[in-house]
Each structure stands twice: as structure tokens, then as C-alpha cells.
């Protein structure tokens, strides 16, 4: 009987050690995650686009959204295309190419492309 009690006590002691280990490890992981998120998890500030609705900003170009990007050479070889350079800042600029616009807005635009340089 006493050996059973002793075995039982040993078993209970073993279980509590196990629970303690698990709790310790869980706490360690959760604490590490929380600390990491608080210290390192910063969202960069959102950039407000200047481009009108229906267009998307790429470099400093406002290009018709919903239109597949084209290879640069395809765009500048396009029959009706508009080619213009915009300044990002004093040291860098982007060349904007729009292919196929004929009546206004983004109607008729079949593709666009941007090439930026520093």
C-alpha cells in the first residue's frame, strides 16, 4: 500500500513537473512573440497616391489601372503611344509610356509601361 501511495505521489509529482515544463515553454514562446511584435513589428506609413481614380501610380507615372503592363519596347513601338518623362526628384525620373488612348480617360488604352532611372 505504501509503495502504491509512493508510486501515486511520484506519478502526481511527475505530472506537475510536466505541466510546469509545458507552461514554462508556452510562456517563453508567447513572451518572445509578444516582445518581438512590439519591438520590431512596425508598419511603414502609407503613401498617398496623387493619381486620379482609375489610374495607379508607378514611379511618378499615373497609368491606367486594369490594363496589362506591356514590355517597354512594345509600348514605344505601339502605333498610337504617348511618351513622357516625370521627375521623381532632382536625381531620378521615370519614363511613362501609354499605348492606344484615343478618346479620353483610360478608354482605348491597350497597355502601358514605366521605366525609372536614378
Amino acid at each position: 500500500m505504501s509503495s502504491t501511495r509512493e508510486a501515486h505521489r511520484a506519478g502526481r509529482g511527475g505530472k506537475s513537473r510536466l505541466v510546469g515544463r509545458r507552461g514554462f515553454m508556452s510562456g517563453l514562446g508567447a513572451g518572445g512573440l509578444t516582445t518581438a511584435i512590439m519591438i520590431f513589428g512596425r508598419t511603414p506609413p502609407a503613401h498617398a497616391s496623387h493619381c486620379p481614380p482609375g489610374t495607379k501610380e508607378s514611379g511618378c507615372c499615373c497609368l491606367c489601372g486594369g490594363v496589362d503592363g506591356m514590355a517597354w519596347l512594345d509600348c514605344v513601338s505601339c502605333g498610337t503611344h504617348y511618351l513622357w518623362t516625370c521627375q521623381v526628384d532632382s536625381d531620378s525620373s521615370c519614363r511613362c509610356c501609354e499605348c492606344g488612348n484615343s478618346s479620353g480617360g483610360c478608354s482605348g488604352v491597350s497597355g502601358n509601361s514605366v521605366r525609372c532611372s536614378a
Partner: protein
Amino acid sequence: MIVLLSAVSLVLAIAIVVLFAMMGELASRIPEPGPRRTWMEPIKDVQLGRIPESWPPELAQVPERDHSVVLVLSTVCSSCRAHGAELENHTDWAEAALVVSTPVAANAEAFVAEFGLGSFPHYVDEGGDWVRAEFEVASSPVALVLRSGRLVGAYSFSDLDTLRSRLHEQLDRIEDSRADAEKEVETV
């Protein structure tokens, strides 16, 4: 088994901490928004001294003025939209005129209407053909500075306040040196 699980959990936790550390490092490399740098830079490959062969009727008054500044904007240029909005604060700028380069005229007309730029002399340059042919300019934003219709300067710029104040300083310097030269002549 339990020890193995614990070890795996610990390794996972460390890996996630390292992942967030990397994200934080990347985020820290993105420059914080600070005071905006202002600039005004001369445009290269522009033929100074040039007088355009023709002026569109909308800009007919430009060659008649002693001093003019023609702002070249484009409907595909995102910063040009910011300058369009800035111009609302510069309606007193008597020397200013606009050329709005665009793939389609309707887009430029919408641009002028959106920012209320109708009070400025303005020309809708479809394809940018006129400003490219007359001034070899195919970029925006650009300010063309003219004296009696002759191109004396071409600049890209960050904002209209900077552009206007630096052009004003240049004009003051030119007029001061002109006044000094006249005094010398009188003395002689």
C-alpha cells in the same frame, strides 16, 4: 517526446522572433517622412536663347511679356497633380502660363477643370508635340523662363513656392546687375 515538442516550440519561437527582427530591420531602412527637400534644377539639353517659331493662340500673350514662366505639366505625371493643386495658391502669379501635355485632349481639359486652372493662360498640348518641337522638352514638371518670348531658362522643381522664390531672386540679381551696368555707363 515532451522534451522534443518543447524543443521544437522553442525553435519555432526563436525563428518567429528572428523573422520579426528581419521585418523590423527592413522597415527601419524605409526613410521616415521628414521635412520635404525642396529643389530647382536646370534642365539639360534645352536650347537656351531659342524663340519658338509659333505660339498657340492660347499663349499669344506670352511672347509679348517682358517676363514669363510657362509651366509644363502632364496628365500622366503624378507630381503634376500636386502642382495643379498648388496653383490655386498662386492665382496672383501674373507671369505664369501653362502647357498641359496629354495623350488625349479630354484628359488635359479635365485636369484644368479639376484644379480650377482656367484663370491661367493655358494650352492643351496633345501628345506633347508643341512643347517637344519648340523647346525640346518632354518631361514634367518643368518651368520655362522666357524674356520677351526668348527662352532664358528651363528648370525642374519640387514645388511652386521654391520655384517662384528662386526665380524672383534670379530676376532681382539680373535687374541689380543691369542697374549697376547703367550706372557705370552714366559715370563714363
